[in-house]
């Protein structure tokens, strides 16, 4: 029994130390008073970031697909700032990250490359390779959705506390 716990802890520690969570892509849906695709402002703001390789606009899903340069780290908060600078809000942001054998589970927190990620509504699994995660925090979902989430995610103590700096993500 003790050995089991020991082994589990060991894998967890190993997994944590290997946590690679570099963001390679962010899929952003923007909302606002006017049609977000009809303005070149978001596109321009996102392209102004040195970490951004290209921005592809998917007109079928009204999504800005932001491809990030390899070997760069970006904080999703910076992407959010840029969209807001263009006069819009984030409706949803799904980030693609690469993981190297990272075991994730509900309410587990991992730290890597300056980002803290808390996994919500997530079943225990090992992430290896690319995975998509939706950012659930305030400002990364619509106001309406956030209202709903602050109830449904209230079991995660860090969720509604503003300044802990962690992103709450749901693996897609």
């Amino acid at each position: 029994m003790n050995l089991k716990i020991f082994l589990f802890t060991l894998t967890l520690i190993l997994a944590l130390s290997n946590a690679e969570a570099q963001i390679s892509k962010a899929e952003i849906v923007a909302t606002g008073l006017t049609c977000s695709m009809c303005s070149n402002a978001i596109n321009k703001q996102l392209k102004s970031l040195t970490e951004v390789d290209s921005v592809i606009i998917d007109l079928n899903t009204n999504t800005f697909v932001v491809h990030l340069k390899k070997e760069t780290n970006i904080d999703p908060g910076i992407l959010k700032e840029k969209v807001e600078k263009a006069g819009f809000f984030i409706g949803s942001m799904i980030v693609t990250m690469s993981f190297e054998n990272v075991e994730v589970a509900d309410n587990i927190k991992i730290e890597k490359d300056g980002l803290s990620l808390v996994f919500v509504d997530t079943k225990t699994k090992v992430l290896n390779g690319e995975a998509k995660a939706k950012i659930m925090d305030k400002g990364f979902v619509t106001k309406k959705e956030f209202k709903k989430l602050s109830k449904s995610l209230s079991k995660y103590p860090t969720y509604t506390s503003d300044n802990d700096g962690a992103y709450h993500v749901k693996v897609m």
Partner: protein
Amino acid sequence: MIQNKQFIPKLKCILITAVLLSINVKPVNAQLLLGDTLPDITFQNNTDSSINLSSFKGKVLLVDFWASWCAPCRKANKKLVDLHKDYSSENFEIVGISLDTDRTKWLKAIAKDKIEYTQLIDPHGFDAKSAIQFGVEALPSSYLFDTSGNLIAINPTDQEIKKQLNHNKQ
């Protein structure tokens, strides 16, 4: 030694000229300003013919940038179709320039919106050369030119267009 003395002022002169020239270089991001002339750009129309914008000189011309996926543009198309019907007997022309990258969607939209005025395409979104040359930052964007091809209004209202047409009648 003497040669060197002569060379240094020459070099200074070249450097100063170079600096002055670099200051004078116009920004790459061109943008049409009021009073500017109708750009000389050739486009493909919806029946695969080449049409140059400058061929519309002599008429009051409304250039309308739009795209099939732009909901506010589609709404504006309805108004433009009516305006075109009402003023087609005048010396007035509307030219739609689509930034659609998908030609099929563009053609479908023309049919659906029952557009009869000239339809041209620059299929590169906001990166289209014509969009950059005109300074299009949002869709729809429209540009009104007078009969001599000078830009007289950006995003004119119906009222402004009608005023210009009535002014020409007198």
